[in-house]
């Protein structure tokens, strides 16, 4: 028997093992014992993820805000990438071209990096929206099954 300094047992009766937390693809057991499989979200970015259903809507909202911010920055970058040279001499034209290359142009450019970021945010939003839609559908099916006489 193990006790702490105050004499309380530390090897007390074991608590019942808890079921795993509810996830989007957790099966639902109906009162009559039938098991309804839940929707499993598709993999995003090369791997699967588990959806915490309580937090999914908030996660979607935050990702949407991130997308809006990226769109804002992209608009500015694209406009500055095409800035008009302040005069028609070669130095000004070269400087405008250089700024354009940095902001807009080619592999590794700021604009392309922004588009890659937008693509990643898009994939996460698409995965979460799909998971939520699948969960809602499975939930509706479960509710319909419960209403069956």
């Amino acid at each position, binding site marked *: 028997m193990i006790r702490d300094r105050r004499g309380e047992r530390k090897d007390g009766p074991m608590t019942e093992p808890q079921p795993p937390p509810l996830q989007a693809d957790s099966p639902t057991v109906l009162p009559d014992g039938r098991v309804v499989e839940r929707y499993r979200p*598709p993999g*995003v970015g090369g791997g699967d993820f588990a959806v915490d259903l309580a937090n999914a809507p908030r996660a979607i909202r935050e990702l*949407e805000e991130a*997308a*809006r911010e990226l*769109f*804002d*920055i*992209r*608009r*500015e*970058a*694209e*406009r*500055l*990438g*095409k*800035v*008009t*040279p*302040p*005069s*028609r*001499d070669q*130095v*000004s034209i070269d*400087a*405008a*071209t250089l*700024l*354009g*290359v*940095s*902001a*807009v*142009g*080619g592999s590794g*450019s*700021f*604009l*392309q990096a922004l*588009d890659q970021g*937008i*693509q990643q*945010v*898009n*994939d996460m*939003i*698409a995965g979460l*929206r*799909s998971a939520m839609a699948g969960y809602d559908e499975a939930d509706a099916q479960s509710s319909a099954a419960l209403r069956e006489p």
Partner: protein
Amino acid sequence: MRRALLLGATAALTVLGGCSAAPTPGPAAAPDRYGAPVPSRSLNASGVADRPCGVLRAEQLEAVGLEPRGQLDPLPAGRPACVWEDSAFTQQTSVALYPDRDYFVDTYRARGMYQFFEPVTVGGLPAVLQQTTPGALTCTVTTGIAVGQAADVTVSEIGVAPGTRSRSCERATRVSEMVIGNLPASPK
């Protein structure tokens, strides 16, 4: 932070321009259009460039699935853009008008910077589709509405399922057609 860097870069460009040699006096050379076609007719965007949210009518916005109320986005180095979204936020569309800058020529000057750069005709006027990579979620259509004037429409899609083809260029072209159809002809 990134915005500050962009603004800093613009300031640096202005300084560089100011330090450069004075242009050689003489007859004005024909402006280099960098391959940009000359518009066959002239529209005038000066009346709506500062309030671009009024350039599309409610029924036109509804036809392309956008909410009627747009938000003004004060962009650096030029006139503001108006930004619209749909109710489910699957797309964002922005329109900016350039009544006193040949943004169409500037776009051609920057053409080497896009992997997808496709000249097209929108409403009978020369335009060009631009994407950093073909099939990207964002597409910009810049239209030369007159010599020295341009209309710029950008559509970004969001929440597109993997493997689904982006329709951002088709959407941007359609919105561009609407914008051009609403602009008055330039007084002769």
